């Protein structure tokens, strides 16, 4: 199974060019992840390391940004540059990095609390800005690091330390919201327990030029044990969105996941309908539009900043405000 690319194999592509790099998996690995056994974050990390290797991303030219929470530990386990920031603020930090250095690939790991609650305002605007970055929403429907509080994506009735009788509100659907924002360019959804398809979606997200938002439904065995078991045990409750321009499942995958829907990712209206489903869980690329303008391109075009341009800019401004000594005071005759 693969995402449909446009590979035109030739012998030239078999050779490293003078500036090409080759990297092994261990060049991206560092430390021992401190996530719980069975935590979905482990699989996301492995997929990201694999992606970096397969695309030969230079570790020193790659930046992983995160907020606060279990998910946001991810940069610590990548041997690249990383920025483990503030709760909810991963996106504006990543935007600053991208605006400053549009040449660097930027990845963001954020959780459901981080992205959809405390950082929700930034998230909406980040979608509008459409800056080129790959954003992984590790959505386990619970606050993990602070020990089990209800999150925006917890289903109604979720018992947590702040909702001992069960939560009161219907779960927030981030896909529907994201697909309603002007400027949206890439929205996908995947589950953490199918590594093959997760990897394919992350590849597509990475290859998309713009703000690629991937909601990864992620298990939390500690605080939501068994919560996704019904979906894991019954593949019919996972719906594959397939399309030549989207996910093209392999034969093996198609044998397991027979609930399939052909969906053209360019169809925004259809994407919104599909996004409204929580059961079955639609997985694949819901929406992709490669032509949405990117803020860092709009703002960064043709920028040149040298001491000379600074001096010229300053002097021409100061000229407007200058009183020169040769402007002789000439008093009107009284």
């Amino acid at each position, binding site marked *: 199974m693969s995402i449909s690319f446009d590979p035109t194999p030739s012998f030239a592509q078999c050779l490293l060019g003078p500036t090409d790099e080759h990297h092994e998996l261990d060049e991206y690995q560092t430390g021992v992840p401190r996530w719980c056994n069975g935590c979905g974050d482990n699989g996301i990390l492995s997929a990201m390391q694999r992606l970096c290797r397969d695309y030969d991303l230079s570790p*020193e030219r790659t930046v992983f940004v995160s907020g606060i929470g279990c998910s946001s530990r991810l940069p*610590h386990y990548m041997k690249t*540059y990383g920025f*483990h920031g503030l709760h909810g603020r991963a996106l504006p930090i990543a935007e600053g990095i991208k605006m400053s250095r549009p040449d660097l690939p930027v990845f963001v790991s954020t959780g459901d609390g981080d992205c959809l609650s405390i950082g929700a305002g930034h998230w909406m605007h980040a979608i509008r800005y459409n800056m080129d970055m790959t954003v992984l929403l590790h959505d386990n429907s619970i606050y993990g690091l602070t020990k089990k509080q209800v999150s925006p994506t917890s289903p109604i009735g979720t018992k947590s330390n702040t909702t001992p009788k069960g939560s009161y509100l219907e779960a927030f659907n981030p896909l529907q919201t994201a697909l309603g924002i002007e400027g949206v360019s890439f929205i996908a959804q995947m589950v953490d327990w199918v590594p093959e398809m997760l990897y394919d979606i992350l590849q597509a997200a990475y290859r998309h030029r713009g703000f690629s938002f991937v909601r990864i439904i992620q298990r939390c065995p500690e605080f939501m044990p068994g919560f996704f078991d019904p979906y894991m045990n019954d593949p019919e409750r996972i719906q594959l969105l397939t399309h030549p321009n989207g996910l093209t499942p392999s034969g093996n995958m198609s044998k397991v996941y027979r609930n399939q829907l052909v969906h053209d990712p360019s169809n925004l209206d259809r994407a919104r309908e599909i996004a409204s489903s929580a059961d079955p869980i639609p997985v694949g690329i819901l929406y992709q539009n490669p032509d949405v303008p990117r803020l860092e391109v709009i*703002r960064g075009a043709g920028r040149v900043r040298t001491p000379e341009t600074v001096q010229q800019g300053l002097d021409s401004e100061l000229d*407007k405000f200058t009183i020169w000594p040769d402007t002789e*005071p000439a008093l009107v005759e009284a």
Partner: protein
Amino acid sequence: MSELLTNGAATAARDNVLDLEPLTGDRVKKRVTVVDEQIVEIVSDSGEGAQRCGQALAALAARSGRGIWTVEIIPAEIQPPARSIAGGSGNRVRMGSHPITNGGDEADLAVAFNEQVLLGREREGELKPGCRILLESMWRTDRNPAISSQYLQTYDELVAKGYNVIEVPMEAECRKLVSDPRRGKNMFVLGILCNIYTLDLVLAREQVALTFGKKDQRVIDTNIRLLEAGWSWAEANVDFQFEIPTMRLTEPQVVFNGNIAIALGVLASGMEICAMYPITPATSASHYLSEIFEKTGGIVHQAEDEIAAATFAIGASYAGKCAVTITSGPGYSLKQEALGLAVMAEIPLVVVNVQRGGPSTGQPTKPEQGDLMTSIFGSHGDAPKVVIAASTIEDCFYSVITARKIAETFNCVVVVLSDGSLATAQQPFPRPTFSEDWLAPPIDQSPVPTGTGAYDWDGTTGLMRRFIPGQPGGMHTLTGLAHDRASKVAYDPASNEAGLRNRSLKMAALQKTLRCPDVHGDPDGDLLVVGWGSTRGAIEEAVDGLRADGKRVSSLHLRFLNPMPSGIGDIMKRFKKVISVESNWSDSLDDELIDEENRRYSALAMLLRAKYLVDIDCWTEVRSRPIKPGVVRAALSAALEKLS
């Protein structure tokens, strides 16, 4: 904004001027008085152009060799009700035969487009006894009896109080030239003021052309005719004139307000990214920067909120380009957590806080110096930051350049404090000459030797070499968690302590490079006044006045508030008493409940008391306006009396 105060573009403007012939016409017999300085206020309803008139007058005065300082009179609302006491909008212009450092005390002459806005100024105590008032007279015969009686009542009240009220048929005179006099009165008034203050009409015509430079020629011509009509009206009807002697300029000067100075400082510092969110009174700096920055490769990013502005700037700085975020008090509060992150992760960052009245929404358009403590101690935990305060318009410019250099050298947060009174005040200062030294040197991006930690703190200075993304061998994950020298999350006591120690040591390393400011006045005496920020001009004028009366008073103005330079303690010891003068809250011992135990001191007084164990007194005022030199002088006189 750039059209306000310029003669650099005067040559071009001159070509747009109708004719340069002197005006002829009736002339009333005049009494000409030579004066050292004058304070003029021009007030109107919002949108009637009094501000533009004041700015043009100030420009003319500056261009013809007078010292000036302007104070904007701004209502809090965009369109307050017409003819209301609180709705006055305009400008105060203080002009002198010497450099002017503040807005001064009460006005010598006021021009008002209606009697209500004038009444607002009068009730605020902004008019000198006997002040000359040029008052639009159209309201006297207004068809609405409520308005005409309001006018008559106010007129009588003003005359009874001894003001010299001169009624001017502004509307009627302007109607002779334009169909909508409401849009032309301001230039008519400028013409009157040119006549009264014997300002060069040729320069004035140029100034009008500059003021309306972006409009078409007909607009310029019409306004020049209005200017000339005002001049001629005064020539025929006003029986007094003032002459303020001129200074001879020896070097080029620039004239603009504090927010323009900050924007130009950002440009000149070589910073490339400014992330901001709209907030009064800081925003006009970003407006102007937006206009000029892109031409030199810079970007102003209007973020979705204050927190995003701060974190966007932090991201940009982290990636190698020291960034700035510009805000005011409420925005500063929102940024506090992000500033703590920048401190913890040692990311250079410049934060400009143009202070306003607080707390909460407070007084958005009014100046106050209320944010010193939050700037120094804000954010949770121990988050040492550098805090500097601009005390003049010139300072606003250079402080940003200095801030960027410090931020990059010490990998720290530098807060630049300005306030609402500097933001909109204009004052000439020597034209800056660009130096490449202003720009920070490029970051060393050579490969990082194996085994070098991201936080290899120097044991003496706490400084370390910063690695930025793209730099080979420097990969690390920066974190707001406590971390060790390799930037690894570290919960052990020793690592936590080491981080705190090194971040604190950097402040000491910077402090060792600071020079103690000079004392204004004698190095010893009875009373030392300490201050910071925009109050400098008023304090020094008050001190000079008292010294001229033989009083042994000096003052010390601090630019670096954190860390403070060495030597301040020694200076304070040479005076019998030290008092701080600030525009923030302090309790008064005159209040029944207040005693030495519970008195809340002003910010600087509290800092200096804690630091130097000196019994420093304070005098403060929070009256929503720049502190006046006369008021400071009175307070200092009272303090001196208590000494003897």
